[in-house]
């Protein structure tokens, strides 16, 4: 028996998640085999390939915005979670304090240093290996090699500036090195790292003007920093994204005509550009039962650009629009926004995330085949 093909309207109805004044309806995805009698919803790669689409909206170096259309929420969420938690990044992990006479406590300084985003040659960062924790008796010993550790230094002392004006109050002019910024961190290549982390590819903080500590004359900070690779799931400092989020494409459906003053008020309920006002044409006015009779020439509300809507449901608060508009979101259209902290570029980050999901599956699948044998 040939599978039933549902009508376009039915498909469209299934695609929209209803957003009402107080409730959200039609939430779970139903495209599983057995849910709709007679229809076939089994996995078909070619069908997925045909329906899946990617639309790019913005591709700045460290911020990318794109749409994935035709994907299921479970997979889109997996990509988002991996972007935040499972892409390996480099960050300061261990701080060896030789001297710290500043007012900032050692551990506070160490925590601040850990959170500074670093950047460098992407090739080098990918070449680096993970810290191999050799299980010891008490504390697991870690072998630090040029493969897995990048070494940095923070060495700074504050001294009096004898050339400052008599009545100077600004600490930065009164003293040398009163403010310790991220630009005072220096990273030198060790061993084979000289192949990658040199010149442009050298490891350096993404933002050189992050304030780390403030000093006064006589205070010194002398620390050695070790950076390793880690993932966001372990500690947030290893997350390569400032944040990665997605939203579903909003859907505004005007059921019956909204004309004249009502139309202007309707347009005000949405962000600028979402609702446009167009004059009612004489043909529409002539059509019997369309609700436009006698309103030729007046302005009617038309959905121009649902993409920029923030779905505040403001229009549902007003009585005059009761029953005239239906709000919703398109279930399988994900508008991603990926902001990188600067270590990797945003588009490479998404590709990395897809790669990580594939690698996970591959690794578990390999384990399976041994289980079966």
């Amino acid at each position, binding site marked *: 028996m040939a599978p039933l093909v549902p009508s376009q309207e039915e498909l469209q109805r299934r695609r929209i998640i209803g957003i009402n004044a107080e409730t959200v309806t039609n939430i779970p995805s139903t495209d599983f085999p057995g849910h709709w009698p007679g229809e076939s919803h089994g996995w078909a790669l070619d069908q997925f390939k045909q329906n899946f689409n990617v639309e790019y909206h913005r591709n700045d170096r460290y911020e990318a915005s794109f749409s994935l259309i035709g994907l299921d929420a479970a997979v889109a969420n997996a990509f988002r979670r991996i972007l935040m938690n499972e892409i390996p990044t480099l960050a300061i992990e261990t701080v060896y304090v030789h001297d710290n006479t500043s007012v900032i406590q050692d551990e506070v300084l160490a925590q601040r240093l850990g959170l500074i985003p670093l950047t460098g040659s992407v090739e080098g960062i990918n070449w680096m290996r993970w810290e191999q924790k050799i299980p010891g008796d008490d504390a697991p010993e870690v072998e630090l090699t040029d493969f897995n550790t990048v070494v940095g230094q923070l060495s700074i002392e504050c001294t009096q500036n004898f050339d400052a004006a008599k009545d100077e109050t600004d600490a930065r002019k009164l003293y040398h090195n009163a403010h310790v910024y991220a630009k005072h961190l220096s990273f030198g290549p060790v061993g084979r790292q000289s192949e990658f982390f040199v010149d442009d590819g050298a490891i350096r903080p993404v933002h050189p003007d992050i304030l780390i500590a403030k000093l006064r004359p006589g205070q010194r900070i002398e620390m050695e920093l070790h950076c390793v690779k880690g993932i966001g799931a372990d500690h947030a400092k290893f997350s390569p994204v400032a944040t990665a989020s997605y939203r579903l494409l909003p859907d505004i459906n005007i059921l019956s005509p909204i004309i004249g003053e009502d139309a202007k008020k309707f347009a005000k309920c949405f962000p600028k550009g979402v609702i446009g006002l167009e004059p009612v044409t004489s043909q529409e006015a002539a059509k019997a039962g369309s609700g436009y009779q006698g309103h030729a020439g007046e302005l009617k509300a038309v959905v121009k650009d649902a993409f920029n809507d923030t779905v505040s449901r403001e229009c549902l608060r007003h009585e005059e629009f009761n029953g005239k508009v239906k709000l919703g979101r398109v279930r399988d259209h994900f508008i991603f926004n990926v902001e990188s902290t600067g270590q990797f570029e945003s588009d490479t980050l998404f590709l990395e995330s897809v790669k990580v999901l594939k690698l996970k*599956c591959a690794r578990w699948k390999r384990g399976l085949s041994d289980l079966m044998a």
Partner: protein
Amino acid sequence: MPGSVHSQDPQDQSMVDAVDQSQEEELVLDERRILVLPGSSETAASFQFEGEGHTMGNALRYAIMKNPAVEFCGYTIPHPSDAKMHLRIQTIETTTALEALEKGFSDLMDLCDVVTEKFTASRDQFNEENNNKMQS
């Protein structure tokens, strides 16, 4: 979440924790192991994944549910403090739970390939259009 995490109720076969020694099949694969939980049969099995959570759990569940031979598929995380994920698959007679799991992995990997391909193409096209716009 099914009942109490600590219940050792013998009638509750579905998500019994892998503390029992009977009928355990485990595999150590560079520190990652899949455990088949006790009480599983050819067509109805529960698997325990260590080190996984909602990220792979939900995506895998979706992929396995798309298989018409799968009668039931669900995943749960018994306790949020432990990084363990349980996945239960029940199939009809034409296939086994293990086969359904393997197919789920393959389908998910194919999906990733398609996403990568289309994403790269769209990104390159966008960059080209933008470069042309900037030059003109």
